[in-house]
């Protein structure tokens, strides 16, 4: 797609460098917008295929199937006339990917339809700014109409169906739906890649902390490098343990609690302290009073403090150390907490807590959920909060996926990550008829509003948006090889708000029965961002062409 600088120079616009105004500026905008929309339109719907990008410097061709990544690979179309519109589209689609997780191709088609129709009406003499006000009013009405169509997600079937709209791989979609159902809207999923076709999942019950065991002598199942402690006492220390005097009080406190085992979580355990603990572990069974495991957490900084606090909350232990009420050397019986089961394997500590502190933990979970819900999907701290939430709610999911080629593995991983974002939104905001039907079913509400609007320009703006809302459904029908898409549109209109076109079966049917579903929040965001981008372009009359335009990797 990228052209050399020499080729670009040959095709430079007449006023380059310089300033151009209407109508040339609009023509240039449309040129770029059309190029990107034409690129993405064939990928829309279940029958659309991926896009090949490359070769890159390593002669590697990337297989891409999400619009946001496809457009990110384009840093110039070679012609400055095209670049302005194309880069506006690139930014718009990237924003959709970041905020909604999916729907980039739909956004491109919608934005093109709004811009093209807006241009036509402006050229016909309508007031540009009032047209834009009409489009904005139409977006508000359509958003309400989408909310009215939304249905809550009740089970793993709907979630799998939503996942299928992203991955198109039935086995992966059902595993993603299942994981989202079990892990909830704030799922913390670790994706592990394999070098051969593979699909498996695992759920780790309990609070998971990355950790290192202080000595291999603490393994209770050495052949599996695993330790399991049932009903252990738990000591949490924000200090290094180096001396025997620091660990003896902990062991005495555990024995006083009549615990059979003791978990020590400390910043580090070494020297005589470690020697004393190992000596206890190696004592003959009849003399050994405690099975002990000492670990140090891998987290640092704020995450380490969270981990300590969460352990304290879950086990009801007091944190010991020089900055706390007591240090390890002065530990009392009541400073130790309890857990139902503790497991250490693969550099992970899993603590299954008793239910004694449920109310306090629940309150913390509620606070965290509120905080996460307020964060945008692309907030860089969001994964940290979700990870912490999964610690308190008691579970992490592991998705193991594999494929022969690196490109395929990366595509699977990207699809899975995108699907979890989308499924999270689905559980929060519900689903609507998929395949572009939900937007299509907003058209009557927009037409009714336009009929009641006195200002002709604003009414035209609302109608303009109504016409644009039919384009995603029409494009999906075209991609599915339907010879007369207008007939399909009419059938969907007649069927009512639950009906859509199932591109795989080629039939118009109930979207919920067919499992052709879209996430309400994503459809809404796609509409809002597409309309915002298109109206911004529509209101721009002048383009400044630089002699050496900067190419940006970041959209």
């Amino acid at each position: 797609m990228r052209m050399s600088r020499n080729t670009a120079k040959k095709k430079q616009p007449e006023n380059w460098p310089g300033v151009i105004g209407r109508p040339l500026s609009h023509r240039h905008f449309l040129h770029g917008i059309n190029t990107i929309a034409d690129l993405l339109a064939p990928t829309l719907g279940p029958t659309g295929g991926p896009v090949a990008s490359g070769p890159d410097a390593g002669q590697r061709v990337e297989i891409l199937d999400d619009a946001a990544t496809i457009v990110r690979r384009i840093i110039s179309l070679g012609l400055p006339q095209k670049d302005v519109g194309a880069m506006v589209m690139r930014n718009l689609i990237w924003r959709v990917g970041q905020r909604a997780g999916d729907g980039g191709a739909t956004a491109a088609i919608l934005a093109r339809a709004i811009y093209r129709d807006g241009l036509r009406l402006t050229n016909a003499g309508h007031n540009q700014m009032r047209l834009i006000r009409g489009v904005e009013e139409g977006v508000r009405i359509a958003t309400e109409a989408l909310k009215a169509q939304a249905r809550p997600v009740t089970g793993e079937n709907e979630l799998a169906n939503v996942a299928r709209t992203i991955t198109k791989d039935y086995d992966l979609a059902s595993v993603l739906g299942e994981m989202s159902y079990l892990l909830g809207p704030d799922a913390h999923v670790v994706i592990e890649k394999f070098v051969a076709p593979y699909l498996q999942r695992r759920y780790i019950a309990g609070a998971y902390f990355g950790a290192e065991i202080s000595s291999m002598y603490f393994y209770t199942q050495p052949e599996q490098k695993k330790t399991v402690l049932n009903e252990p006492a738990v000591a949490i220390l924000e200090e290094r343990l180096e001396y025997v005097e620091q660990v003896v009080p902990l062991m005495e406190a555990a024995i006083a609690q009549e615990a059979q085992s003791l978990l020590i979580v400390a910043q580090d355990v070494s020297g005589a302290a470690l020697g004393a603990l190992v000596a206890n572990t190696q004592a003959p069974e009849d003399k050994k009073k405690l099975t002990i495991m000492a670990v140090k957490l891998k987290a640092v900084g704020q995450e380490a403090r969270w981990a300590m606090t969460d352990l304290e909350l879950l086990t009801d232990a007091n944190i010991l150390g020089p900055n706390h009420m007591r240090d390890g050397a002065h530990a009392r019986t009541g400073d130790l907490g309890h857990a139902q089961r503790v497991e250490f394997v693969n550099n992970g500590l899993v603590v299954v807590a008793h239910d004694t502190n449920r109310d306090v933990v629940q309150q913390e979970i509620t606070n965290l959920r509120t905080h996460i819900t307020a964060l945008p999907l692309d907030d860089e701290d969001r994964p940290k909060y979700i990870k912490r939430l999964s610690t308190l709610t008691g579970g992490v999911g592991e998705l193991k996926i594999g494929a022969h080629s690196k490109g395929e593995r990366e595509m699977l991983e990207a699809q899975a990550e995108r699907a979890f974002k989308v499924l999270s939104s689905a559980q929060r905001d519900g689903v609507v008829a998929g395949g572009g039907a939900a937007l299509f079913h907003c058209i009557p509400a927009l037409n009714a509003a336009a009929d009641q609007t006195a200002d002709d320009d604003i009414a035209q703006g609302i109608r303009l948006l109504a016409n644009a809302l039919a384009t995603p459904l029409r494009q999906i029908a075209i991609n599915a090889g339907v010879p007369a898409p207008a007939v399909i549109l009419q059938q969907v209109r007649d069927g009512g708000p639950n009906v859509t076109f199932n591109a795989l079966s080629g039939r118009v049917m109930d979207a919920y029965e067919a499992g052709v579903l879209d996430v309400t929040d994503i459809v809404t965001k796609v509409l809002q961002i597409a309309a915002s981008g298109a109206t911004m372009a529509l209101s721009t009359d002048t383009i400044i062409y630089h002699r050496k335009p900067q190419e940006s990797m970041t959209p």
Partner: protein
Amino acid sequence: MPIILSLAKTNNVLWAAGPEGLFKVNGHGLEAVPQPQQELACCASDGKRILVGGLPHGTAFSPDVGGNWQASWMDGVDTSVLCIAPDPRAADSGVLLAGSAGGGVLRSQNRGDSWLVCNYGLYDFTVLALAWAPPTPEGVWPKWEIVFAATEEGVYRSPNGGRGWRRSEGIEGVVQTLAVGQDFHTTGIVLAGTESSGLWRSSDGGRSFAPVANGPQRVDALTATATGWLLSDENGLWRSADGLAWTHIPNSKPALVLLSTAEGVWAGGEEGVELVA
């Protein structure tokens, strides 16, 4: 007569287990079979092996119809195994689930040689009963492996063969028995019997339960049959076609376990084992 808490069928042999040990049920009554557990709570069969759950080994299995026994590897769980439920396709998949007293659910993929704790989503780790739904019909997508776990504080549902669990809504109390309808994939009916809060019924595939108004308060045993449902309380057996309307079967004996087989329903209890329907 020994108390029978659990029944299992392997090929043509009916097995019965209870605190007094493991028995083969034959024409002459109960024939004791030596096995390694001291406190036996349950028995099960995957079609090839007979397994017993209890203490001190958690589970032990015999590959040769009770001749030799081997203890399983229990993933650190040292409490008693109270129930074992083979996957309906266990003969091919080798998947079994076990419920323990405090250790939660264990899952085996090798017919009980070794188990892994699968407690994701559980809040109560005393699992009193496990029940699998029939396999998803051919040609249906997504293909779930639905299974239910009864605990001391409610029912949990797993869509993936016991790898993870989600609590069913509505039902509370000590749930000690479960039954899944033979036409589960069309009706979605699941029944749960509690120790003192009566019978509960789900018609949405076990996602939520509602109390059954005219059923007994205590349900000790429950099973789905080809024509409906059968349960037992402390006074005798009850029958229902839809799980909603129940009628007491006069002169029937109370049972602690009911097992539907091709030849009818077997009942086990304080007076041994008998064919009741």
